[in-house]
């Protein structure tokens, strides 16, 4: 075999090309997360806007957030009659929807998703879809179908990217005990969770998804950032917020 001998200037030229290709690839590699984040956030803004419009339309139609247990939501009837008292007694329970009044046996993921997750502390606002496969997670956080529905007993779990595709869960490690997480369904139901803990586990530690008798929400993402070696698990528990209003404020 005849050996081709390259001149020195050609060698330098080839070396320059190889260096430029490697540098270009490296640059692309570095810019890729930023690119997906920009695209993800732009898309999310439009998804959020569509979601809000649809929610308003549903509210105008007067759709109920969920099928409510009749025995639970009408406490006033046995005490006093008339519209006036009904208006009042509805109020303390209207935000208190996360407990036994929801009949989960007749509900499916479609009754909840897509829903909006809001975490005021880290200014997070994203639409969560049902499913935690690669395609769904590229669109935003996704609920793991094998886990309970929001508000139900057990550990309802939502996964999200930490550094790419808009990085919805980028700042979840900044949350502390007591910080609130809001889940709003498109039909107007709201679940409020309070952070109770944070754990770092291996991807194989699926035991973390096993629930207790509590009604919990887990937010999971990669840990540390730019790595999938471990998982960060933010644990929160369903919280009822009771109104501070005086009855008169609404009725005078």
């Amino acid at each position, binding site marked *: 075999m005849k050996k081709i001998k390259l001149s020195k200037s050609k060698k330098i030229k080839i070396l320059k090309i190889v260096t430029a290709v490697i540098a270009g690839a490296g640059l692309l590699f570095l810019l890729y997360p930023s690119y997906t984040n920009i695209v993800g956030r732009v898309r999310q803004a439009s998804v959020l806007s569509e979601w809000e419009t649809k929610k308003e339309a549903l509210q105008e139609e007067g759709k109920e957030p969920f099928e409510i247990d009749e025995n639970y939501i009408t*406490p*006033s009837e046995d*005490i*006093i009659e008339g519209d*006036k*008292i009904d208006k*009042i*007694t509805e109020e*303390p*329970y209207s935000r*208190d929807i*996360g*407990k036994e009044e929801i009949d989960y046996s007749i509900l499916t993921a479609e009754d909840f998703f897509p829903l909006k997750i*809001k975490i*005021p*502390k880290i200014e997070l606002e994203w639409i969560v879809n049902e499913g935690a496969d690669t395609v769904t997670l590229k669109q935003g956080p996704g609920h793991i179908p094998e886990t309970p529905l929001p508000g139900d007993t057990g550990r309802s779990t939502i996964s999200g990217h930490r550094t790419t595709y808009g990085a919805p869960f980028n700042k979840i490690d900044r949350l*502390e005990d*007591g*910080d*609130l997480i*809001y889940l709003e369904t498109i039909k107007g139901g709201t679940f409020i969770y*309070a952070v*109770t803990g944070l754990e770092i586990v291996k991807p194989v530690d699926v035991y973390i998804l096993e629930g207790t*008798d*509590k*009604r*919990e929400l887990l937010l999971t993402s990669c840990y540390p950032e730019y790595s999938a070696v471990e998982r960060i698990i933010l644990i929160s*528990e*369903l*919280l*009822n*917020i*009771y*109104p*501070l*209003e*005086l*009855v*008169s*404020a609404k*009725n*005078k």
Partner: protein
Amino acid sequence: MIKLKSEIIIFIALISIAALLAGYNVFSVEMQKIETSRQIEERQRFEREMLEELKSRETRELAEYYQMYRPIKAEFVGKVAELSEEAQDKIVNVWHLKELTTARLEAVVEYREKLTGIGDLPELLDTFYNYELEFIESDIEAISIVLSYYKSESYSTYDDTEIKKLYKNKNLLFLKAEEELQRVYGKYNLGYLLEESS
């Protein structure tokens, strides 16, 4: 003849006396009737005047009480509205929630102190006052339990039956107090006072 004349005179005299007696009797009865009627009228007038005086006294008492009650109630309602409005915005954490709830509890305790400090409660407002105090006690109890719930840190396993019961009860008492207040002030044509302040 003379005898006949004297008999006639006696007869006439007797008749006259009888007529006079009867006339007097009729006259005195009529006079008595007039006097009785006058006395009845007088009594009625007196009663009317007494009633008017009593009513004006009660009205005055009610108006005076409301002058003292209104600013206290307005302050309480204003504080609660302020706190509720703050709670309507997204609360960031449980600590903030506890802070708002504690402030709400302080507001109702302060209202109780000021209300009981008014004094000179018109008798007509006894029922209203009892309802209002019952509402306050129920409100304090409800908010206290809510606060202990936020502090419990077992948020989703907490049995809140008692909270729901208290909310229902305090709402009912609040309404009863308002209705009673409106009833009393309406009866004494003072409903406009409540409208002015609402």
